[in-house]
């Protein structure tokens, strides 16, 4: 029986010729990731194992991004615990303030993930690296601890939904609109326990930023992983970022899929997910005027250079609407530097926005943009659950960087087509 991309990677990493959906396997890991929230729990569990070293100091990475730069004393203690552990274990890839960025933007940028890898991360958005043709999935801290100790993790081999992409995206429409549209179509548990595999001739029109954004939100459809077929765009990206030799796993022609969904990219419109679930996707025309209090452009979903470029194009020469607080967060130091050199930061600041150091901060209601009761935000982040960005009486509307930037200047939820034309 044929295998999907994901099944082929899992078979190769568990020493098996083939695997099928439902099978339990023990797979070798190429990279184990943690952040300042999840690593402290993992370190405590690791200590219980009584090991004095990790399985491979080059295959573990910790990124201080959620509550860093330290938001309070407890956050400082958690970062210190990670710092001390990585020092004791001589972990090569420890990223602290000054070197860190939001983990899922940072790791691909640093070339730490390549096609064909198996990656686990104690962060649900670890599924992002599927954009590089890797099997990559979020786990908890105990899995991270055991992964650090033995370099293995158990998996139930997933079935898959195949997304066959055709056409190309229209101006001011991006990967974010695609994934919000898909989640709106299949629901927040539409891909539960399964892979979302992206393929088709439409791939060639999707940039790596689009793909990373789409794979990033596979978890919001309940998926175990999202994965893109590797093409020249992927290989160029891996080469440019110094990633190690890619191994390409293509799905068999007779691979078994639970479902095949065709998506014509040219039909996707700017899309907004309403509170309080990412599946509440709507397009403009389906709702009336909704005034806003805050805009956040950033996160592991949409804090990449391309995201900032499109936001700057829309905000250039315009002012943020009165009463709207606009927070821009480049996802890594490199993106921050590139945005500065390209003059994007000047555009943002002159429009009345603030630009923050890289952090996950407001996305999960940590700090750096918390909402009060009754406040409403348009954000490029990934979740709009009750209380996600602050008070349980606040509301988060998920959108693309273009829609967020358009909304920043109008003060209401606005399509980039409305502000810039089609």
């Amino acid at each position: 029986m044929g295998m999907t991309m994901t099944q082929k990677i899992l078979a190769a990493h568990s020493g098996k010729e083939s695997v099928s959906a439902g099978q339990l396997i023990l797979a070798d890991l190429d990279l184990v990731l943690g952040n300042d929230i999840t690593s402290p729990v993992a370190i405590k569990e690791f200590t219980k194992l009584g090991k004095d070293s990790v399985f491979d100091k080059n295959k573990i990475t910790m990124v201080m991004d959620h509550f860093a730069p330290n938001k309070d004393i407890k956050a400082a203690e958690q970062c210190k615990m990670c710092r001390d552990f990585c020092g004791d274990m001589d972990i090569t890839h420890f990223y602290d303030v000054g070197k860190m960025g939001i983990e899922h933007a940072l790791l691909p940028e640093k070339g730490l993930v390549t096609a064909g890898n198996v990656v686990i991360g104690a962060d649900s958005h670890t599924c992002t690296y599927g954009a590089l043709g890797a099997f990559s999935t979020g786990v908890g801290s105990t899995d991270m601890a055991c992964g650090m100790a033995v370099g293995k993790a158990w998996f139930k081999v997933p079935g898959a939904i195949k997304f066959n992409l055709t056409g190309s995206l229209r101006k001011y429409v991006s990967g974010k609109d695609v994934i919000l549209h898909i989640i709106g179509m299949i629901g927040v548990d539409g891909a539960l326990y399964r892979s979302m595999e992206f393929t088709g001739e439409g791939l060639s029109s999707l940039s790596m930023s689009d793909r990373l954004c789409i794979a990033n939100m596979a978890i919001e459809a309940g998926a175990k992983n999202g994965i893109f077929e590797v093409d020249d765009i992927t290989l160029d990206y891996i080469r440019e970022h110094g990633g190690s030799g890619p191994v390409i796993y293509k799905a068999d022609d007779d691979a078994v899929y639970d479902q095949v969904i065709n998506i014509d990219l040219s039909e996707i419109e700017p899309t907004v997910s309403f509170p309080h679930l990412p599946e509440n996707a709507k397009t403009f025309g389906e709702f009336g005027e909704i005034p806003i209090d805050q805009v956040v452009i950033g996160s592991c979903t949409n804090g990449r250079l391309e995201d900032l470029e499109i936001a700057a194009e829309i905000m250039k020469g315009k002012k943020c609407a009165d009463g709207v607080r606009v927070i821009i967060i480049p996802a890594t130091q490199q993106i921050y530097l590139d945005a500065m050199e390209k003059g994007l930061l000047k555009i943002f600041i002159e429009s009345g926005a603030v630009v923050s150091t890289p952090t996950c901060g407001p996305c999960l209601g940590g700090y750096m943009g918390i909402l009060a009761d009754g406040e409403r935000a348009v954000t490029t982040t990934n979740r709009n659950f009750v209380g996600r960005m602050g008070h349980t009486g606040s509301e988060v509307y998920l959108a693309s960087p273009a829609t967020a930037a358009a909304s920043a200047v109008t003060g209401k939820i606005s399509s980039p087509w409305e502000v810039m034309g089609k």
Partner: protein
Amino acid sequence: MKYTGNVIKYGDNVDTDVIIPARYLNTSEHSELAAHCMEDLDKTFVSRVKPGDIIAAGQNFGCGSSREHAPIAIKASGISLVIAKSFARIFYRNAINIGLAIVECPEAAEALSEGDTVEADLDNGIIRDLTTGKEFSVEPFPEFVQKIIENGGLVQSISNGVIK
């Protein structure tokens, strides 16, 4: 594995942000996490939960983040078992890995009412609602997962040499 307790009932898509809001993730102390369990969904949970109580919920329980703090908070609050129509996958493996008993049973999750007294015998795959007299059957865990649970979680399984 047998559990007896009273039901606390919730709906679909109970996410990890309401199980333990991120503002409390600057600690990993179990008792501190338990003190804020379910806070953004049900402010009365912490004051009314009794040791052994059972959560019955709808689809996609535990969706959202990978924070292990969520099953830890539930377990530390005294909950003995979570019965749901379905679980989000990271929450599912986290619960197994830390030794919080969970079971998928759409029929029971639908039929159980707030306050019902329930007895769950997972070895024999039976959930009994002692208040209404209804019985439900459940699938046992796969053998591999059962081994992890029998060994007291993933860390202990590695320590015991079950996983090498």
